[in-house]
């Protein structure tokens, strides 16, 4: 079990949180866990939509003090 890798995409408009997450997912290995931090209001829905469509796994998705914390496990 590898450590959780933090992808800090707070306060970014370009390339944006989901694009940042995709970049880091490509650099990761199957089984790795990533935690995306995002202040983009849409991330709570946009990120799970992509993760589910590709076939990775959402481990948790919560908003804490205005920041989305979304944990994803790379499944393929």
């Amino acid at each position: 079990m590898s450590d959780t890798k933090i992808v800090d995409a707070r306060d970014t408009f370009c390339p944006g949180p989901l694009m940042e997450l995709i970049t880091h997912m490509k650099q990761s290995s199957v089984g790795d866990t990533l935690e995306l931090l995002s202040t983009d209001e849409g991330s709570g829905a946009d990120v799970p939509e992509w993760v589910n469509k590709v076939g990775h796994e959402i481990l948790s998705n919560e908003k804490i003090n205005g920041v989305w914390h979304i944990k994803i496990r790379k499944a393929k």
Partner: protein
Amino acid sequence: MRILVVGGGTGGTIVANNLARRLSAEIRSRRVRITMLSASDKHMYQPGLLYVAFGQMTPDQLYRDQASLLEGAIDFHVDPVEKFQLDQNKVVTKSGKVHEYDILVMATGSRIVPEQIPGLVEGAETFYTEDTAVRLFKRLREIQEGTVAVVVGVPHKCPIAPVELIFGLHDYFKARGIRDKIKIKYHYPIGRIHTIKEVAIWAKPEFDRMGIEYETLFNVSEVDVENKVVRSEEGTETQYDLLIAIPPHRGMEVVEQNNLGEGGWIPTDRFKLTMNGHDNVFVLGDTTNLPVSKTGSAAHFQAEVVAENIASMIKIGTPVRDYDGKVYCFIETGHDSATYAMFNYQNPPDLKPPSKPMHWFKMSYNQMYWTSVRGLL
């Protein structure tokens, strides 16, 4: 004080020139020395490649001699770094020469890695090098009908390029009188047609008006060259006659070989622009791992902050300001109009309607770049 700038692209060149001016007295009195190490004696204006792809510029117009762009006080060598020994404040170059420094500026840039996607090299045209941009233009001249598909790798530099390419394709085929025979289909990795929400909201009706088809949540997984099909990680596919790719990028190999950052991107403080854990190492442009656009514009604004802070550290012992995430991107919306997106960490862009004067400004900037990179603009 020895300042070593590694990389002679937009960021490195502006930092070096800006520093040479700010520290001219210190350089004359030999208290400061600025050295630049680069892999090439030429400097390319990379945004010009898109114009080459549409036959509006020729490759020779994109280059200047790097030495001609630098202040005379800068000690310039074409001798790329191969080893970074940050714990000893020194680097070793390809020729075997050792350069010691007090302050290091890392501006090594990024590279395309189309080979990471099976079939992309063989099956797709692109425009991120001189040769491929010329080849794409020849393909665009030849095609008479069919589907032109555009796919976008992640990460990629110049995030505006995909939509500029689409607008350019529309105008190019319209000018050839074959727009009605060409289907343009755009594929984008996330759930809207551009990563910047404001650009996506603005571009969608433009795409609809131009008859551009689009598919979102499309991350290229492979290109079936024989059957001319491009497939996505999300499980969809598109048949094409001409495939154009914005290729995925990585940081430079030397960064990875020296274990300085995953993917070749160096972990960087988003405000100070220093390498994490190394206060005397500054990082800028494509080289950083920051969630900031990989563009010449970002490199330019970061270079001004880095140069001002290094100069003030030498003059008064402390840096004076933070990078606020500023980026300014022209957006060519065809062959005769443009708009722009300007934003920072806190403020999203506020897109204005495209206009001809903004296009003329962009065309002027294509020449003014050479003044900009000298640190004069």
